[in-house]
């Protein structure tokens, strides 16, 4: 019955790598945030798959916590995006080099 649970972990790794590529390669701040969401989502998939492996719902509880953290992170991130765009008129990540001390 069903697929082997390893398939879910491989899929999770693939999604994580795609998200990591987006964070590294893209310069649009909003797309970088979306790629971060992809990485968080792949971690959630791993959490739920492990919860199925061990037949223990703790993994699902952690996934709910992770969603909460993701929501808070997106809210703060998008507020920063709005602030950066209001001040600089662009969303290029590279202009944030001015934050360097």
């Amino acid at each position, binding site marked *: 019955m*069903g697929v082997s649970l390893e398939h879910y972990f491989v899929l999770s790794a693939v999604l994580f790598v795609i998200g990591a590529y987006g964070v590294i390669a893209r310069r649009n701040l909003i797309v970088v945030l979306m790629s971060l969401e992809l990485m968080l989502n792949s971690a959630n*998939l791993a959490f739920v798959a492990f919860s199925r492996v061990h037949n223990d719902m703790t993994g699902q*509880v952690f996934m709910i916590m992770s969603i909460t953290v993701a929501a808070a992170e997106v809210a703060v991130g998008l507020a920063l995006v709005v602030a950066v765009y209001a001040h600089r008129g662009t969303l290029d990540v590279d202009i944030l080099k001015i934050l360097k001390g």
Partner: protein
Amino acid sequence: METVVFYIFAALAVAGALLVITHQNPVSSALSLVLTLFSTAVLFVLLLAHFVAAIQILVYAGAIMILFLFTVMFLNLHPEALRFDARNMAFKVSVFLVVLLFTGYFAGMGFNKAFPGGSAPSPSPEGFGTVEGVGRVLFTDYLLPFELTSVLILAAIIGVVAIAKRRES
């Protein structure tokens, strides 16, 4: 049957993820992200995590994506602010990451006989993944972390208001 559903929605999830990082327009990226999140929700159902699948659609594909779309449309970006230019370094760094991550995955558990996921999933106990089951764990063993999450959300709300508020100068 379950295998077919898995492969269809796994392919959709990967396709959505690829579209997220290749689209030039953030609105298209956001809609592709919805595809990925929805496909992941279907996979959660296959993993018998029904409550979490519902949460995924309501909170992630619903609330968070609306927030993204709202911001993109609120900013009303210039077309020249949207050009897609991947960094030269990015591809090399990503290939390195892929090799590293997959080596770790397969060395750590893929070929490890002690890893319980190597076989087909075992039958799950009664009430696994339902609202009652997850709620019972959430409100007994993890009550304190659950309450602390509300502090996190409060901090996020205050932070967002402080950051995004217009300053009168």
